[in-house]
């Protein structure tokens, strides 16, 4: 096979080349390449033409990547740069449909690009890619403007679903286990997969509407056609009206390994939150009722029903420790 002169060869000959003759040299090379991959793409989905110190990126690439007869060092490195960003952006695109609907596609893409630039993945699994999204929006709310509060609610809600899907379950405490226990002494833990969310927007109904809208679109197309398109071009879903401001107490959990979310009354939410904080059952109930606006209400049967339901759903487990006991 005749090989033409590689297009980037003259550049690479002038550029000092990185070696990999020891673990520390390998580490330097890997740090350089990873830094190149983590840098966001340009608006045209290309690798940035300048390096962090202002040097031309083709020179930096040529310092460690060989060109070939078809691609320059820059172009070969760019393949990895693009694959990295397409993979992580696609992952968050799929995992956060609610946030995407709150912000709109363009703002969503800008937000997650800024997020991943500041917080690259620190986990071996893409499952955890969005774990610091709430922290990021709190730190840099401008990316979610003008819907910061709604975006935060949605991120908490969508992350709670990741947790509910595969976080550990402890052995449940059954009604028989606590039959003779005194409420003044009894402490109950909540399952690690269960999240209690106090929200300002009805993001639960909104997410159901968003998913329905997206699935309606998908059902109308041949599945292979949709899969062949880049994610950003799936902008066919109907616009769903944003949720109105409304205080909401939500629990996100699983039952029989299926994911559920359920609205709670404020008193129930307060009781469960207190239990999670390590209060005894008696104290948790007192805290829950103290916050109630309802007067002249017979709470006894209501609380009994709640505890019965929660127990049947397997929400209770033995607490890890009793922080309020010591």
């Amino acid at each position, binding site marked *: 096979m005749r090989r033409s002169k590689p297009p980037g060869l003259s550049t690479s000959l002038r550029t000092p080349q990185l070696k990999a003759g020891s673990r520390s040299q390998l580490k330097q090379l890997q740090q350089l390449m990873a830094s190149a991959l983590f840098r966001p793409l340009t608006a045209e989905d290309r690798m940035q033409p300048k390096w962090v110190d202002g040097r031309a990126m083709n020179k930096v690439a040529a310092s460690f990547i*060989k060109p*070939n007869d*078809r691609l320059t060092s820059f172009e070969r490195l760019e393949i*990895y740069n693009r694959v990295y960003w397409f993979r992580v952006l696609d992952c968050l695109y799929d995992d956060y449909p609610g946030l995407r609907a709150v912000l709109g596609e363009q703002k969503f893409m800008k937000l997650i690009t800024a997020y991943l630039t500041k917080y690259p993945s620190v986990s071996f699994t893409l499952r955890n890619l969005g774990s610091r999204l709430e922290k990021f929006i709190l730190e840099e709310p401008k990316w979610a403007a003008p819907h910061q509060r709604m975006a935060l609610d949605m991120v908490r809600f969508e992350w709670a679903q990741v947790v509910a899907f595969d976080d550990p379950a402890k052995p449940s405490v059954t009604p028989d286990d606590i039959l003779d226990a005194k409420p003044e002494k009894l402490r109950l833990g909540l399952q690690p997969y269960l999240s209690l969310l106090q929200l300002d927007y009805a993001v639960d109904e909104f997410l159901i509407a968003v998913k329905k809208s997206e699935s309606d679109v998908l059902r109308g197309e041949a599945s292979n056609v949709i899969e062949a398109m880049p994610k950003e071009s799936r902008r066919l879903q109907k616009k769903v009206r944003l949720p109105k401001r409304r205080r909401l107490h939500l629990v996100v959990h699983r039952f029989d390994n299926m994911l559920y979310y359920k609205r709670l009354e404020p008193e129930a939410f307060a009781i469960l939150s207190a239990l999670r904080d390590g209060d005894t059952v008696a104290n948790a109930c007192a805290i829950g009722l103290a916050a109630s606006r309802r007067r002249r209400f017979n709470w006894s049967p209501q609380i009994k029903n709640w505890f019965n339901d929660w127990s049947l759903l397997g929400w209770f487990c033995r607490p890890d420790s009793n922080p309020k006991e010591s």
Partner: protein
Amino acid sequence: MPANLFNNFTDYGIGIGLRVPHYRHILSKKPVVDWFEIISENFMVDGGRPLEVLDAILEQYRVVQHGVAMYFGSADRLNREHLRKLKRLVKRTNTPWLSDHLCWGSVDGRYTHDLLPMPYTFACARVTADNICEARDFLEVPICVENVSSYAEFHASEMTEWEFLGEVVERSNCGILLDVNNIYVSSKNHSFDPYEYLNNVPHHRVGQIHIAGHSKFEKYILDTHDHPVLNPVWKLYAHAVRLVGRTATLLEWDDRIPTFDEVHHEALKATRFINELEDAAA
């Protein structure tokens, strides 16, 4: 009887990758499949649906673990938490061997979630072999390393990819998961002869073979796992089984996944080449 030193599971036949779109079909129809390969990281969780599905699969099928995030070629030491989670899964599945890639993908605790190529140097081979030995000692299960497809080469390299693979597996005394599609993809991207690669890997160390589809672009080929296996790859596979003997083989299909039957049918095409080999031997 094993075809070679590292291949004690020649009876494993032809497997396919366990993928989410097929769960319902597999659990309800219970199709006859020689074995399933699971992506370890998808099941290194603490509870919920993934483990429920895995347990149901384990009741009916043989399962082999394949990892994508061990990063044997990373200059950093292996992540002990990752290893602990992996070992829990190994105990759950009883995988007869475990595979991961001859690559790196993380540095300083930051993950690219990609299978990045190594500079082919003796120093890098030592680093990689040390990591493989550490993983094997901790996990107490045989390890096969898989050659990756790549789109870039390093100035620092001192040898060919197949020489590097040989150096690593000899130093660490581990097996090879030979991905013939990856060899084909890299041979096109780096202009080498894929048969030279196949002829020069240590055949007695090949414990498993991967086959898959890829996508052609104007100036390079991408390893996309979203197509049936292409003819040049089948030819390489036929050559590989002639060299290494009957070997557990797995079809990877990870994107634009068709029906279970379609994937299984594609995988079973490999049987023809194994049968031809045995007919010739008879």
